[in-house]
Structures are given as C-alpha cells and as structure tokens.
C-alpha cells in the first residue's frame, strides 16, 4: 500500500526505547494521522480522538520497554487505541447532535431518532460517507477488525496476535465483514464501481 505510515527504523526504535524524545516524536509523526483517523471513526468525535491518540502515544512512551521491537510497534499502538476507544464509548456513548439556533438563543434538537451517527459530520466525500454507513452497520467486533486492518494496516498475523484469534479465524471473519458491508451497500442501491470511480 503506497499510503501506509512510514516505517520506523530499528535505530529509531532503539533510541525511542532509550527515552529519546526526538525518536518518540518521529513515531508520533509516522503514525498519528492513521491513529487519529481510526479513533475519529470509532468514536465519532474529533476531540475524543485527539485525546485518546495522545493517551496512546504517552502510554507507548511510558511502556516502551514492553514493546518488543519496531515491527510490533504499529500493532501495539492500534491495539491500545482499540481498547481505549471501546472504553471511551462505554463511558460516553455517542450522543445526539444538537445545533444552536442563534436567533432564539437556545438549543434546537436537529437529529431525530435514527438519524446519522455523530461521525457523519466528519465525512469528506459522499463515497466516504457511504463506507462509513456500511461500517456502522457492522457488529462492533467486525467493525473493529475492519478498522484495524485498513487504518492500522495490520496484517492477518498481526490482527490474530492482537485479537488473540487463529489466523484462519481472522481471515474468515474479515471476509465475512467485507461481504456484509458489500451487501449493505448493494441494498442501498450503491454500486462499488461508482464508489471507486
């Protein structure tokens, strides 16, 4: 994948483990966009994503000696992010958007029951929004699997290690999750070809 986060060299990771601040910042620079993207979609909240991403990087720095090597770093970051996002959602489940009406000076509910989830405000393109809705339709476990795969760019083996599942199970689950998303999109009358165009 051409857009994957820049790999961290063994030397950078060694300096990171020794507490080198510049090396830690290199790691932040390499992974923060992907991590923020992942957390943003998972939590539906830019602020929460920012806070959680900071927590993840600080946790990595605090526990840097527990991270095996540079190859394990990415999976470590996204696994911790996944746990923190799940914990955050348990504490602060997505809430309904309310807009402020300047002319009245009070609050006006704008999102009726069944309206789009909070992350709808984050969408950039219509295609992205369709994908988001298909992701939302997945069970949480499947959604996290897909998110870790594509945002974290984790391999099947890394996913299997992170989720404590056999590689075969991960492959099957991932395939089923993608099939569910595809079915969801097709039911909406959305062509994958059009989305990719």
């Amino acid at each position: 994948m051409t857009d994957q986060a820049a790999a961290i060299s063994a030397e950078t990771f060694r300096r990171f483990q020794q507490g080198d601040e510049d090396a830690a910042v290199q790691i932040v620079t390499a992974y923060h966009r992907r991590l923020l993207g992942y957390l943003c979609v998972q939590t539906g909240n830019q602020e929460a994503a920012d806070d959680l991403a900071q927590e993840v990087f600080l946790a990595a720095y605090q526990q840097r000696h527990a991270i095996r090597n540079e190859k394990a770093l990415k999976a470590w970051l996204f696994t911790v992010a996944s746990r923190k996002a799940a914990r955050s959602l348990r504490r602060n489940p997505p809430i309904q958007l309310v807009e402020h009406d300047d002319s009245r000076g009070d609050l006006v509910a704008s999102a009726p029951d069944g309206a789009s989830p909070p992350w709808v405000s984050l969408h950039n393109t219509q295609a992205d929004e369709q994908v988001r809705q298909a992701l939302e339709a997945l069970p949480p476990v499947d959604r996290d699997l897909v998110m870790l795969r594509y945002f974290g760019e984790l391999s099947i083996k890394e996913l299997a290690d992170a989720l404590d599942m056999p590689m075969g199970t991960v492959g099957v689950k991932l395939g089923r999750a993608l099939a569910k998303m595809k079915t969801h999109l097709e039911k909406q009358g959305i062509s994958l070809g059009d989305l990719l165009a």
Partner: protein
Amino acid sequence: MSETERDDPGPQDEQMDDLLRRFARETSEAQGDAHGDFAARMRTRLREQSRRPPGQKGQVAETKCASARRRRISPLLLAAAALVLVAAVSFLMLRRSGPAGTLRHQVGTVTVEGSLEGGDLRLTTAAAGRCLYGLDGERIALFLNEDSSLVIASPGEIQLDRGEVWITVRPKSGPFAVQTAEARIDVIGTVFSVRLASPGTTVMVESGRVSVQNGCGIVGVEAGQAARVPNRALEPVIEIVENPAVPDWAWELYNGATGANQERYYPSSHK
C-alpha cells in the same frame, strides 16, 4: 499493506478492499488539517513525560504519590504554579429563566452536543470561541474559554475535559461538583468561582469554600486561595492568590448575555 502481509489470504473482494483502503487513506489524510498541531503538542507532552522516571512495564509514574510529594515541594514547580494562577470572582446574578440549561451568549464557534435530558450535554468551543451557559435555572453560570470542552453530566456536576471554565454558583444552592482528569472539586460554602485549566487543574475560590481532592489527598480551599493539581499523582497544593481579577473574555460574555455595558468587574462591588 506491510511486508508481513505477503502470507495473507488476501482480500476476498478486491473492490471492497480498494474502497476501504481509500476510505482509510482519505480519512487519515484529513486528520492533518483537523489536528494540525498534534505532533507539536505531543512533543510538549513527551518532554514532560521524559522528565519523569523511565517507565518500565507496569511502572507508571503518575500513580506514585511518593514521587509526587517530592515534586510538590520543588520551588521551581511552585514558582511555575504561581505564574499560571489567576484570580477569580463571583460576579453573576443572571436572571432566573425556565429551562434547565441555556446557552446565553456565544462568541465564535460553539458546539453543543447531546441534551441534559439525555444525561450528557457537551459544550465545546473552537480556537476563537467562547460561551456563557446558564445551568439549573441559571443558579450556575459556566464561562467557557477558547478551545475548551466540558460535559454537563447533571445540573449538579460537570466534567472539564479540556481548556478553562469559570463557574459561579449562587448562594444556598444544592451540591455542585467539577470533575477533571486530575481532581474533583466540590462546593462546600456559598458563592464561589473557580478556574480550571488543563492539563493540570487550578482551582481559585473568590468567596465561599470548595474541597479539592484526588487519589493522593483532599484540601479545603478558602476565598482568596487557589489549589493546583498538576496531575493525579500530586496532592493538591494550596497557594495564596493576590489581586484576583476577572479576565476580559469572561466579562465580555457577561455583558453580552445581560446587555450590561460595564468595562470591568470588581469583586468588591458585587454583593
């Protein structure tokens, strides 16, 4: 995908695979604009972190009150704390109105999410946004500064997640508490105002009394005093505050909400 994926079974559906890759890439690239200074902020936080003892597995410096106490008595820390403490006053008697919560005045971009009836209402101000929010028939007034975010869990409790809020509570009101990452502040006395700033929490009392507590200790803070809690591992430190003054931004919100046109508010003139 990474090199380790050469042995992957591969995507069962190439179109879905392409679609999700693009979605992840575009969403992630957009984070550069949405969180433009993230790396710079992380550098600052990492620098703070690197000054602490190296974090071995299971050894997290923030949870060790012993080391925190050593930091508490540092003259440098106290001096830094003194610089960031500002005064606060109680200056608001907004007219009582009906709803449990009302956005009385805003400047710039303010986002209101959720509802009090739903259990949680989040107020967030953008970089150039501020607002005045009246709570519980406006017995409580929240002045939220720029780039701040809080959650109103109930009319008697808020949680400050980021930034700064000044709070005024009318005398003889019911219980009211503020929760931050570092501490919990409970109203004990009558009228009071607090200033919270994150990271780290600073509480200043203009009149009345509040308690400030976290896992390491609890202190009572009287009028004219401030308590600073740099993080959860440090006991709250009491300091004396001289010449308390309401910041201009809060005063402008007050004037905007009430139609008043006073240039400055002086605590001694407020009864």
